[in-house]
């Protein structure tokens, strides 16, 4: 006999009450990344082989800078959720799995900061 109520089973949130959050955010970021990825490809294709001045001028548009930051941040969040599942599925040594998961979170934040600050620096007029 289970001590869990039928409602608890149906809702399925577990003790932390956030079981659906991972799944849900992966979808939310996916939906947002559909138009953003198309925008990114359309923007990056004409920049093939461009020189520094051209790329800087492109990035100094507030619209471009905003969308690029949004793209990188959402991509990183989406990556992080996906890579977490990959690590959980394929790494069976507990300490190694945990180490990888923690490094993944740290790396995600670091890469996000580097990307965001680089874009802001260019967008706000620095070289």
């Amino acid at each position, binding site marked *: 006999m289970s001590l869990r109520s039928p409602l608890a089973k149906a809702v399925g949130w577990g003790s932390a009450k956030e079981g659906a959050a991972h799944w849900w955010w992966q979808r939310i970021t996916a939906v947002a990344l559909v138009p953003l990825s198309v925008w990114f490809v359309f923007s990056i294709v004409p920049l093939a082989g461009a020189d520094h001045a051209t790329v800087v001028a492109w990035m100094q548009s507030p619209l471009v800078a905003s969308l690029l930051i949004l793209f990188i941040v959402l991509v990183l969040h989406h990556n992080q959720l996906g890579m977490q599942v990959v690590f959980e599925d394929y790494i069976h040594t507990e300490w190694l799995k945990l180490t990888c998961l923690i490094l993944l979170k740290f790396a995600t934040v670091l890469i996000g900061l*580097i990307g965001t600050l680089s874009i802001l620096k260019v967008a706000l007029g620095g*070289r």
Partner: protein
Amino acid sequence: MTTNNRPLSPHLQVYRLPLPALLSITHRASGVFLAIGTLALVYWVLAIASGAEEFQGVQERFGSITGRGLLFLWTGALFYHLCNGVRHLFWDIGSGFEITTVYRSGWTVMVVAVALTLLSWLAAYAMRGGGA
């Protein structure tokens, strides 16, 4: 106790994956590959912020044979993951589960992804107007 030789699970060495399974594992593989590609994107953005000289060096690295090869594969992975991701989103709202639809959408994803990859590279080379 009688035993039979029926496989207990799809045994990857002897079991040919059907198309939907192949597309499923490719979705995951392309996602991992794109996560690595994100590092390249941030590296490029960092180079822009680091000045003209650094940027030139990074552009040459991306413009090398290896660089172009990787960028081409990342383009393909992006379009595949994008198209197949949309296919997954339709499944998430409960549509497209009929077996014929699953195969048809699978083939559509592959054709569209290849077409968009080739198209964007043709456009890139055309807009570039020759040069190195």
